[in-house]
């Protein structure tokens, strides 16, 4: 990425937006992935939690890479929030199954 002497404001905003998507959205995605593994893995409760935590950082990494590799800042957010929503649904399903 070449830096010109003055970058347009829209570009700076887009980079800030990607950064936020990567840091905040990525953490959300990583957390939800670890929660899903903790609730769904067919091992003991503690082992499922440990496995979730152990692998969460890989999800974080992938989210960050996606946020800076995709074509626009909007795609960055969609690419992080959509899988997060799916994971949240799975986690909710696990909760609901445990309840009933």
């Amino acid at each position, binding site marked *: 990425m070449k830096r010109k002497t003055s970058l347009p404001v829209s570009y700076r905003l887009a980079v800030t937006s990607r950064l936020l998507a990567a840091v905040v959205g990525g953490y959300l995605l990583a957390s939800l992935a670890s929660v899903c593994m903790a*609730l769904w893995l067919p*091992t003991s409760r503690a082992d499922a939690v440990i496995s979730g935590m152990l692998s*969460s*950082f890989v999800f974080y990494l992938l989210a960050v890479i996606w946020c800076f590799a995709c074509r626009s800042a909007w795609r960055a957010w969609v690419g992080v929030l959509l899988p997060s929503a799916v994971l949240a649904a799975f986690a909710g399903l696990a909760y609901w199954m445990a309840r009933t």
Partner: protein
Amino acid sequence: MKEGFRQAMAWLHTWAGLIFGWLLFAIFLTGTLSYFKDEITHWMQPEVQAHPIDDARSLAVAQAWLQQQAPTAARWFIDLPDHREPSLTVSWQAKVDPGKRGDFTQKVLDPVSGQPVQARESMGGEFFYRFHFQLQMPHPWGRWLSTISAMVMFIALITGIITHKKIFKDFFTFRPRKGQRSWLDGHNAVGVLVLPFHLMITYSSLVIFMSMVMPASIVASYGNDTRAFFNDVFPATDNAPALGQPGQLVPLGPLYDQARAQWAGGHVGRVVVNNPGDVNASVKVMRAGADRVVHDFGSTVSFNGTTGQLLRVSGDQSLPQVIGGSFYGLHMGHFAGPVLRWLYFICGLAGTAMIGTGLVMWLGKRQLKHVKSGVMPFELRLVEVLNIASMSGLMIAIAVFFWANRLLPVGFAGRSDWEVQAFFVAWGLTVLHAIFRRGRQGWVEQLSLGAVLFIGVPLLNALTTSQHLGVSLAKGDWAMAGFDLTCLGSGVFLAWAAWKMQRRNVAQPKAERAQSLVFKGEVN
């Protein structure tokens, strides 16, 4: 970010590396020093006598001392001496209301006399170890910041690999004396050469604090009762509460023998006594981390403290626990013998060098545009100041820390804190110096000062103690001699670096240097 995947990853690598590079440099260098934590402490407390290891005697001494000094404590911790750490450390936690954490007190005892060791007050290698992950910040902010840095390091590593497409071909390409090219080749070479170490050390640092930084799954699975999670993972920490009736603790020696028999002769690292003065006392004998690569926090044999009855032997770890424990054990390197420990040290230095060369390259490439005008924009100047202070400045601060250890009077009140202050004052002064001196001149002067200080360490040691190189080498005290020799070597290296910087400055006119730096836009 329109150029394609690799370019986008190069951008991410560049900026993540820059923003966290200075902090990561300090974390890597102090972490590398921590592999010789005990040896550094040995040098910084030369009064501590090493005795042949006798665990039975150490345990009896510790128990007698704690019985006298802290009979009402909530918990005792006895850390037995080993061949690297000659002193017996006892600590205890004051009894307070349930749910609160009582204050810890720590004493270092002589394992033979049973009296507190009379040595100069100093944090020794513990300072670097603590700084490495707590960054001298209040709990828990330092741990958070260092773990966030680790995540950035992880991102920088992976994006670096993606950016660097011809990873093995380029590894055999080193173009010395080609200015910017050589820096890039060096950056790639140290990066690739110890890549497995980098990946291991970075991912494991995330794993070490994962229950702090990624607690969502614990909360989701255990609700508000996070204690239950830790009780599941480490059953040995689930202790019987005190009953409030006085009890008599059994001698710890026989429990120690029983525990070792359970582990087929494995070594004991620590003995914990819960509620030592209570009828419900319990004793946990914990295995030494140096026994195995895979760390197991829960590797414990528990006893009833008043009857001596064996309560529980912790079982085998499950697979996820083995994976987590491997990361932890590999990161700490407790199991490493001398050769492997040096390898850890060298790999750590390589990581430090990779971060340093990256920072230098970032600036070098951008400085080119301003060579003709000779005026650097503010942000480049800022990066330059931070580069100088975070690298050569940190080395000076480390050397000053060692100098302070020898120069502050032994009986000086609060001398341990003064050593630490000397470190930070020196570091702060190097920032000021870098602000007031221009570019290379700042580098040359700081590297030279660092060289003088480090080369002076063995001399200073000879002047202030009776354990100079002649004595320590003859005695076979390799920790003491190794420390002096490593300082000497570091000083020579810094002198070489200063000389290179100086020579380059004089030999090459600016325009010529700019030409040799013309650069294909392959990376970034």
